[in-house]
């Protein structure tokens, strides 16, 4: 049983996902926005709302480039990892309030440019004083310290991390356009270079240049458009009582994430339980974060996430398919937004070899530092 939904996702657009793209981030964003609007069966002139995730590239640059006149302009306001999901709630509020009829949400990223995804942390004076001088810098190092403690608390051996990355590769091999489609056996995993113990390269997400976008409108308008609507039936937003300075080192409950709050909120607003989820797309910047969130979200028991993956439950043919495009580990690292696009494809039933049969309820969940967002997306019935 699900609650009545007021809004739906009606269009998705993605660019190609590569390292060292020949295109600027602005060009990539424009291409993804155009593609999402076309997929919705709309023209730019009909779309009157825009929500940016980073504010970069600027929404006015995009709308001027494609001939779209903004009635509503919003920003997601959450830490980037979670922002592509919280943006759906911003868009819903605007649509429900009549501030816009059709809203496009976009994210563009040039992660393979110099400095990569690490540089915004270097601008934090606390990190520059209390972490960088000790070499505690770069997201793989942060998550490795979490993973080490997780392995200690739940008696997980480093080799047992393998199943998460192996599952991601299996899904990516079924996905046109995925960035990393080479097979990954257990032996391949053990040969993957160590980055920061116990995390290997295979545990770390890709670096991607690209963009993705999606279009939302009211559920009523959605039913007049060409694609089967994907309803936003539930959502949960949460922020923890930490700052971006101290989240990686000082949380009292060291392995707690906002998913402990956002998940239950999303399930409650959709009127479902974790058992109702047919397919899950969960933010996987590292195998560590994927497992911590899956446990928080009630998709597997606490401390058993790696065993769950090793047993094949999240893989093709498994009991709970997770990240059926390969996720950020193997499809592309456009945080959260490609997870929304994949959930929409699954609920439209267009994923061919990777289609989860009978998929009607998708959970999309994403972590952005101390922020977290979870969405329940449902096939229109």
């Amino acid at each position: 049983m699900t609650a009545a939904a007021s809004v739906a996702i009606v269009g998705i657009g993605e660019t190609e996902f590569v390292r060292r793209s020949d295109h600027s981030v602005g060009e990539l964003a424009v291409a993804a926005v155009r593609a999402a609007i076309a997929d919705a069966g709309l023209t730019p002139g009909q779309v009157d709302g825009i929500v940016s995730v980073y504010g970069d590239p600027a929404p006015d640059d995009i709308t001027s480039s494609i001939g779209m006149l903004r009635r509503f302009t919003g920003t997601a306001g959450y830490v980037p990892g979670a922002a592509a999901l919280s943006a759906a709630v911003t868009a819903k509020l605007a649509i429900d309030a009549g501030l816009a009829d059709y809203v496009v949400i976009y994210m563009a990223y040039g992660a393979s440019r110099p400095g990569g995804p690490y540089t915004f942390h270097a601008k934090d004076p606390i990190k520059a004083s209390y972490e960088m001088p000790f070499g505690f810098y770069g997201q793989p190092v942060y998550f490795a310290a979490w993973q080490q403690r997780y392995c200690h608390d739940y008696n997980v051996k480093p080799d047992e991390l393998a199943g998460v990355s192996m599952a991601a590769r299996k899904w990516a091999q079924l996905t046109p356009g995925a960035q990393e489609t080479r097979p990954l056996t257990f032996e391949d995993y053990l040969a993957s270079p160590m980055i920061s113990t116990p995390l290997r390269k295979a545990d770390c997400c890709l670096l991607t240049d690209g963009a993705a976008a999606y279009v939302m409108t009211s559920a009523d308008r959605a039913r007049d458009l060409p694609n089967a609507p994907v309803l936003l039936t539930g959502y949960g937003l949460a922020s923890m009582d930490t700052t971006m300075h101290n989240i990686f080192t000082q949380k009292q409950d060291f392995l707690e994430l906002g998913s402990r709050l956002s998940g239950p909120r999303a399930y409650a607003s959709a009127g479902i339980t974790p058992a109702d989820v047919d397919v899950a797309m969960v933010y996987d910047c590292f195998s560590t974060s994927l497992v911590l969130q899956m446990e928080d979200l009630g998709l597997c028991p606490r401390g058993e996430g790696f065993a769950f993956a090793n047993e094949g439950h999240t893989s093709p043919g498994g009991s709970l398919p997770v990240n059926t495009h390969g996720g950020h580990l193997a499809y592309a690292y456009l945080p959260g937004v490609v997870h929304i696009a994949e959930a929409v494809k699954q609920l439209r039933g267009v994923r061919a070899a990777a289609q989860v049969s009978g998929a009607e309820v998708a959970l999309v969940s994403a972590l952005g530092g101390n922020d977290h967002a979870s969405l329940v997306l449902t096939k229109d019935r």
Partner: protein
Amino acid sequence: MTEHVPEFAPYTDDPLYAPFWAAAEAGRVALPACPDCGVFQWYPLPGRPCGHQGPLEWRDLPGTGTIFTFTRVERAFLPSGGEPPYTVVFVELDGAPGPRLVSVLVGDGSAAPAIGDRVRLSPTRTATHTLPTFALAGSPDTSAARTT
């Protein structure tokens, strides 16, 4: 074994950071606490979550503690001075319940510590500053000879 310790000069130009690095320069480790209720605040914020007001008080600590977690960094991420490998440790310091100090483990056994291992302050002198690094308790004291 060649021992790597990052050489990345700290940002100290702020009253919230300068006392820590002044203590480190003197071979000590100090953390800030609320003078009214004694709660340690780490990292220091512009306000006090305990509700009291006024400046924090920096307290010298014995320099002993326990490893809470660690990671052996094997790839370079710092913009400069971060040649791997080196071992980052989070230390729970005796006399300061709550905070975890991010530091580097040096000396014998530093490549493969365990959570729960006891450590003691063993500073490392770099070209620009003194880093309050730690060594496993019971390992030989090599601090005086250790420079980067």
